[in-house]
């Protein structure tokens, strides 16, 4: 599959700060690609670079087969960007905001009215289309900004902190819209976020950025396997065998880390790596422990992220 975005050794410096450093990655057509990183990690700078809004200090990139520096206007006609702040003209109505951007994006004149009405209905804003945006809630502004980003049916959508500052219901609504767009309309989505739960739920692949540098790239499952070595395992044994089991687990310090806990009836132990599970199970079986259930608690991106962050902080 041809990559929609190819970034090669991309670097952008601002005076003495390096916002993006030696970044290389590819994003494929039709995928929801998560771009993770803390505030100031370089996510927004990367989006600006990929849309030809700012120029790189060094490195190269191709987006939709175009060079953002040389073909910025042609490229931006094919991408849609939802910025971190909704960036709407609050003194204008929702309809005015969209009609101005329809002109800017060259939506055919004969289709402008229909397209705006369609999007306003899709984003549940049709009833308040003639109200000034200043009167909208944050969630409504964000939905309107998303509608604006989709006006010209972009092939590639950049979403920068799409759910930042939204309440859980509004965030859920926006995430549903993103999923629908990617699945139904087969758009490629480049999702910048520091919401790891959201990334895990939406993204096929993710890249983790730390101080402008790419520190991890892969599917959420690959990253958890690669970066999460400790694993919490829930073990359910016969009630009368719990004390013996605890003693046994304590006798395996090379496999079991820390003190086993018993929060809700079942024992929870932290194992040093996934590969130790059979060894622990074998040890329990050899000692006649009746194991009813042994359930590894799947690691998530959050753990990947924190592990990476701790590693980096440790290095520094």
């Amino acid at each position: 599959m041809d990559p929609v975005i190819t970034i090669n050794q991309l670097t952008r410096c601002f005076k003495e700060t390096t916002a993006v450093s030696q970044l290389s990655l590819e994003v494929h057509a039709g995928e929801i690609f998560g771009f993770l990183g803390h505030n100031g990690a370089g996510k927004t700078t990367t989006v600006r670079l990929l849309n030809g809004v700012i120029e790189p200090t060094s490195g190269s990139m191709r987006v939709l087969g175009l060079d953002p520096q040389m073909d910025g206007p042609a490229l931006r006609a094919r991408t849609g960007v939802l910025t971190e702040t909704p960036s709407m003209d609050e003194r204008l109505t929702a309809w005015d905001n969209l009609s101005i951007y329809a002109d800017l994006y060259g939506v055919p004149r004969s289709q402008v009215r229909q397209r705006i009405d369609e999007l306003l209905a899709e984003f549940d804003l049709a009833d308040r289309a003639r109200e000034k945006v200043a009167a909208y809630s944050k969630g409504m502004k964000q939905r309107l900004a998303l509608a604006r980003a989709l006006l010209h049916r972009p092939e590639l959508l950049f979403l920068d902190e799409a759910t930042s500052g939204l309440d859980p219901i509004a965030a859920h609504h926006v995430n549903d819209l993103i999923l629908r767009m990617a699945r139904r309309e087969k758009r490629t989505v480049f999702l910048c976020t520091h919401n790891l739960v959201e990334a895990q739920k939406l993204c096929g692949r993710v890249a983790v950025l730390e101080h402008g540098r790419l520190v991890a790239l892969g599917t959420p499952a690959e990253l958890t396997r690669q970066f999460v070595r400790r694993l919490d395992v829930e073990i359910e044994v016969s009630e009368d065998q719990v004390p013996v089991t605890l003693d046994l687990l304590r006798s395996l310090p090379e496999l079991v880390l820390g003190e086993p806990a018993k929060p809700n009836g079942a024992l929870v132990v932290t194992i040093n790596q996934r590969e130790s599970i059979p060894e622990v199970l074998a040890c329990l079986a050899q000692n006649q422990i009746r194991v009813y259930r042994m359930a590894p608690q799947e690691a998530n991106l959050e753990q990947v992220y924190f592990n990476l962050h701790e590693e980096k902080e440790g290095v520094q």
Partner: protein
Amino acid sequence: MNKRAIFAIIRKDLKVVIQNKGVMLPILILPLILFVILPWLVTLAPSLVNIAGVSANNLEELQTLIQRMPAGFQQELAGYEGIQILAVFFLVYMMAPFFLILPLMVSSVIAADSFAGEKERKTMEALLYSPTTDRELFVAKLLSGWLAAIAVALVGFALYVVMANAAAWSLMHRIFFPNTMWLVLIAWVVPALPGLGLGVMVLVSARAQGFQDANQTGGLVVLPVILLVFGQISGVMYFSVPLVVLLGLVIWLLDGLLIWFGSCSFRRGRLLGA
């Protein structure tokens, strides 16, 4: 050049400005004071002074002032007598430099809102992600201020023509305004002036933190006009047709310089502070 995109930006900027009381109030108040209240004050003041017991024809101070003026100016006033001189002096000649403040102010206020204000409201970023070129963006931003300034100046001029003739009717008994100098001023100098305000504001806005910051710094652009007022009061010069033609030429040249410099340094990334 994508004309549709340029007009979309102009439409957006003007719609936003119209909704902004902070911008609209000075744009409305200045013409109201200059073109409605002032003509009546100038023509009514001598009558009020007369009622107070002082002869309105006792215009010794004005005569002294006019005697200090260049010979050409004294010739311009040759056809008038007594209190008519006062009306022509103020309504035709003194008002000319004041009138120039209007397009300058309107263009700089709109440019401050359009560049620095948009940056402050964080609406600029979405615009920068649109498929416009830097040049289209620059031209659109200039045109929105330019067109608005000229429109306000023309409306202000039409208003002033009516008000000045109406206010001075009892003294002149004819339509005495505008004269040739004013027509040259309107056709040649007024269209050039917004370029000065816009050119300065483009440079100022790149560094300004917000609308007020840009407006205060860029507001200094009216200082040369104030110098023209003092120049005329002190008798160093007066608004004759040749002077107005020369003034327009200088302003157009400055416009060209400022806009060339502005367009060379205008990069969309800079509007984000990058």
